[in-house]
């Protein structure tokens, strides 16, 4: 990254932090601290907690190991769901992209799942698989599978016809063509869809963790902080979720860079 860009990024982030800090100081004592919760009032709510309050809450969450355990529990669910969902989705997507007949066969199913918001399946999965871990992981896997399927399908379809014809005219068999041409060329589209799928998985987990809500879990931590309400805890949970999305996203980007190393790139 050129120096100018780095400097500007730092300026922007520092400005954001400074603006928040100033707003929190101004807001202290001025913003309403008595909040109507639908059935009763809650006193002493800090709508914009100061950095001091955030640090205090953060220390508590860290020292009690609540935050660390929640991160591990939620990340585990997301990770298993993403792995399971992307495996199924990528395999199916490669299939629908490669074989026309299979595409037509799969089409009604894909259409049904594609336009169903994944969260709508939550009550159904609870009825089918119970309140346990299975429902949560499968819900994430379903959402991820649909996105990965579409990505893999488009990736395979995007392979230029000329490449396939050239390989065929040189005598390459179907398996060789699939392994050496289709798969590598479809990879960028697959990984791009995985980035979308991961963001979706974290949206899903926030709601999915409210069923049979138990404590180490970020979704429930967020819900609890809303129930008291305890704003510093809420903001820390939000920031943690955002940080995890970034970490997962970064992991896919690394994978992307590694997997497409063979491609020639112009310096940009």
């Amino acid at each position, binding site marked *: 990254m050129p120096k*100018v*860009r780095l400097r*500007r*990024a730092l*300026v*922007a*982030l520092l400005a*954001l932090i400074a603006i928040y800090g100033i707003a929190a100081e101004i807001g202290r004592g001025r913003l309403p601290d008595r*909040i*109507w919760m639908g059935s009763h009032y809650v006193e002493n*709510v800090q*709508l914009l907690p100061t950095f001091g309050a955030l640090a205090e809450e953060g220390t508590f969450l860290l020292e009690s190991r609540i935050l660390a355990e929640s991160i591990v529990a939620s990340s585990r669910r997301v990770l298993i769901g993403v792995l399971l969902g992307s495996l199924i989705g990528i395999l199916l997507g490669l299939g629908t992209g490669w074989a*026309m*007949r299979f595409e*037509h*066969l*799969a*089409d*009604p*199913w894909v*259409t*049904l799942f*594609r*336009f*169903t*918001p*994944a*969260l*709508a*399946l*939550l*009550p*159904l999965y*609870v*009825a*089918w698989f119970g309140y346990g871990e299975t429902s949560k992981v499968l819900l994430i896997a379903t959402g991820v599978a649909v996105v990965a399927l579409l990505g893999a399908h488009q990736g395979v379809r995007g392979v230029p016809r000329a490449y396939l014809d050239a390989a065929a005219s040189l005598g390459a068999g179907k398996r060789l063509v699939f392994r050496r041409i289709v798969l590598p060329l479809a990879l960028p589209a697959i990984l791009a869809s995985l980035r*979308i799928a991961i*963001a*979706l998985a974290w*949206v899903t987990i*926030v*709601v999915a963790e*409210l069923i049979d*809500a138990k404590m180490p879990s970020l979704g429930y931590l*967020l*819900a609890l*902080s*809303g129930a008291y*309400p305890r*704003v510093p805890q*809420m*903001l820390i*949970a*939000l920031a943690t*979720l*955002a*940080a995890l*999305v*970034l970490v997962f*996203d970064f992991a896919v980007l690394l994978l992307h860079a590694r997997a497409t190393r063979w491609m020639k790139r112009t310096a940009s």
Partner: protein
Amino acid sequence: MRAVAQRPLLWIVSLATLIAAYAVVASVLQRPDVIPPASDIVETFRALVAAPPPEGAAPMEGHEGHHHHHSSDQIETLQQERVTLPASLGISTLRVLFGLAVGLPLGILIGLWMGASRRADDYLHPIFVLVRSIPPLALITYIMLWLGHSEAHRLIPIVYAVATTAVIPTYHGVRDVAAKYEVAARSLGAHGSLLWSKVLLPAAGPAVLGGLRYSIALAWMTAVGAEMLMADDGMGNFLVGGGMWASRLQTRSDPAVIIVGILALAAAGWAMDAVARLATARLTRWVR
């Protein structure tokens, strides 16, 4: 081509298999509380299409008079609250449309700005990456604390989800696609509004519209999620039926109601997507 003729046939075969497989599983399993038979689903659909007559007006015998009647806690709760499928779907659709109407222009504007100005990109992109990473549904309670119990905390997450997803394709459309033409246009003397209306916007158009379909899907997802968490109307409320807040997810739900809801949502999502696809095809006709 043979494949073209095969398409509708395979499609119908697959759909028939889907329905038949479901019917077989339902009849083998014999657990209407887990896999309700198709007749229950049809019954449920009928029961929830219109509100039942007000209490007292219809004596119980009239109810019994219907042949086989599928009933459950969830259907009863929904009927008591006078929740119907068309009304719920209508409300959710309106929320989704509001989210698109406000979120798309917002996201596209930010995307255009970041894509066109190097300086804006340098300053705004890091902040955008942070903001985009916050799952929209996680914001509901915080918004509620600020704005109270109102429509706002259902609509803002939808707007937020749509806007953040609309930024990226617009940004890349302007920066990567349009930039090529921009150099040529500028060297020919185009600038200002001419440059934008004749070069940048049309060149970025296909990318912007390409993101539209994804924005629609995400808007539906967020709307349903927000309604499941905190609303007493809309499809999310229909699905979790009755109860309040997070506790409602503990109430016993009826798979027949949920399947009816999912089919309705899938149909609505498909219809909106079809409109978006048609609009995209029309607006980008000149590309071919």
